[in-house]
């Protein structure tokens, strides 16, 4: 990648001295020494696969990843007809409608609560943050086998029985409310602490003078302070959190795979694509689905950038 001391002519910004042997000083060779490995990797493992997939998505590719058997837009048409792929987008929409607002409100609430106390604050912060260390697989395991075990003596059913509530089968039933409760709470537990840290960092950046000014201007109760000072000041953080939550929900795989597997009733896009490509070896539809998902997420990101200005160096 690098040819030391080869680039004498390009060395317009060359450092003062070229003492010592083989010291890399030319701008060109230095640049490629630093950035070259990354660029090569980016091309091989990001750009080539994406290009390959776009091409493959116009082919019938059963049990093969070689394009050739051209079918035009047929793979896309198949996916966008009413069927499992569109169902998976609906599943994602339902999931996002629960998980995004719930995580937002609860993590903001915890951050506000923590920001108001002084004793033991670091301890509580650590406790809420601790689930970040846990994987979705382990959390799914606890949720499925222990807390929401559908048998008579799972934890949730035991607690419910104290109140005279009948046994609930949780994941073992396909009627809507109960498996959603399991799926949503597992992600809530795992990610609230993470977003709470983001909100805490945002809260710490709010200038204390603003609160003084608000007090002078007659903001007396906590709600007014929150409504007119805290929340507007958290705008940048809130926007970032909402976008992250949405993108992460879009990529949901681990907990669905481990809790409900390849079920027709709660199968988000990535789980559907996993079974299409890995089990059915149908790479034509698999890559077409990946292209659609990538386009959808790019549209969301770009729309957000239009509205809020993404990518600007601060």
């Amino acid at each position, binding site marked *: 990648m690098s040819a030391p001391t080869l680039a004498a002519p390009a060395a317009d910004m060359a450092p003062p001295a070229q003492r010592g042997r083989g010291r890399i000083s030319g701008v060109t060779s230095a640049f490629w020494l630093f950035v070259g490995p990354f660029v090569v990797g980016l091309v091989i*493992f990001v750009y080539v696969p994406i290009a*390959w997939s776009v091409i493959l998505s116009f082919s019938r590719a059963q049990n093969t990843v070689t394009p050739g058997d051209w079918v035009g837009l047929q793979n896309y048409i198949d996916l966008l007809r009413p069927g499992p792929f569109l169902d998976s987008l609906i599943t994602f929409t339902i999931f996002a409608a629960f998980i995004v607002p719930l995580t937002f409100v609860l993590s903001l609430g915890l951050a506000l609560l923590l920001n*108001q106390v002084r004793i033991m604050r670091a301890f509580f912060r650590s*406790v809420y943050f601790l689930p970040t260390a846990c994987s979705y697989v382990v959390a799914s395991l606890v949720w499925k086998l222990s807390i929401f075990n559908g048998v008579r003596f799972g934890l949730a059913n035991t607690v419910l029985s104290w109140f005279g509530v009948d046994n609930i089968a949780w994941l073992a039933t396909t009627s809507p409310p109960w498996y959603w409760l399991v799926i949503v709470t597992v992600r809530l537990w795992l990610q609230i602490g993470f977003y709470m840290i983001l909100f805490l960092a945002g809260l710490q950046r709010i200038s*204390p003078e603003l609160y003084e000014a608000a007090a002078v201007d007659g903001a007396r109760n906590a709600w007014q302070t929150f409504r007119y000072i805290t929340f507007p000041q958290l705008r940048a953080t809130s926007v970032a959190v909402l976008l992250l939550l949405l993108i992460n929900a879009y*990529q949901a795989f681990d907990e669905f795979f481990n809790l409900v597997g390849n079920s027709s009733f709660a199968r988000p896009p990535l789980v559907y694509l996993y079974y299409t490509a890995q089990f059915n070896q149908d790479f034509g539809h698999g890559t077409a689905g990946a292209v659609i998902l990538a386009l959808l997420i790019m549209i969301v990101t770009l729309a957000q950038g239009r509205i809020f200005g993404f990518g600007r160096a601060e």
Partner: protein
Amino acid sequence: MSAPTSAVTATVPREQQGAVRRRRRRVTLGSVVASVLRYLALIISAVLFLLPFYLILRNALSKDTDITAPGWRLFPEQLHWENFAELFTDPSVNILQSLANSAIIAVLQTAGILLICSMAGYGLARIPYRWATPIFYATLVTLMIPPAVTFIPSFIIVSQLRWVDTYQGIIVPVLFSGFTTFLFRQYFLNFPRSLEEAARVDGLGYFGAFWRVVVPNSGAFFAAIAVITFIASWNAFLWPLIIGQDASMWTVQVALSTFLTAQTINLHELFLAAAVSIAPLVLVFVFLQRYLVQGVAETGIKG
């Protein structure tokens, strides 16, 4: 499992506004009640957050009959430490192999990402070269597409390289993180130039300035990225599931998931394996939380 307070250093600077507002606030009955309610809410939340961790430990040291049993009790009468021996000698559950796989993959991935992305970020931030801007834009474009969405394309390239069921198949494709490179570039843009100029005056090229001046003075940032990367790598599931198909290549997450869905092993072994799998991260968490919090604040906001 509870995080010891002693090891937790408060990175988030103490609020200054507290000091300002405290002077104005008088101790009234109302404020005492509010304070009690606040702590009550915090304590109830803390119990809920810790409960799953407790359940893992409790079930790991129980017999199957105590995990879901009539008359289920929160605190089991007896702890079965012999479960450890049972788990590690069970020939059908090669948990040590998958723990070793996870460790190898997470360590190499973290080291590789730090090396490749920090150098690329530095080059893009500091070396004036005509390709710097186009490459930076080519990097930014990739940020719009999360890697999870393109797992099929990535799998195709790995299979063409005949890297399925290999360490490099799991490790290498993840190393070229546009996002981490972006974070490093932003960080190096704010690195004090005067320090580097001093190094240049001393006759160091870009390479020398980077390794002898910039890296040694950026320990906290590197540590923050390292902790975040290590945790993400240890907990990764989808990519190792696709590439590490043979049981000998399973990471601990894939192994746990397989046992969970196939239910081929005892419940208490499964919970003990889960407890063992999160132990390294809880250690990282307790001792390096300062960097972790910084890393989260850093990566989250700019994402």
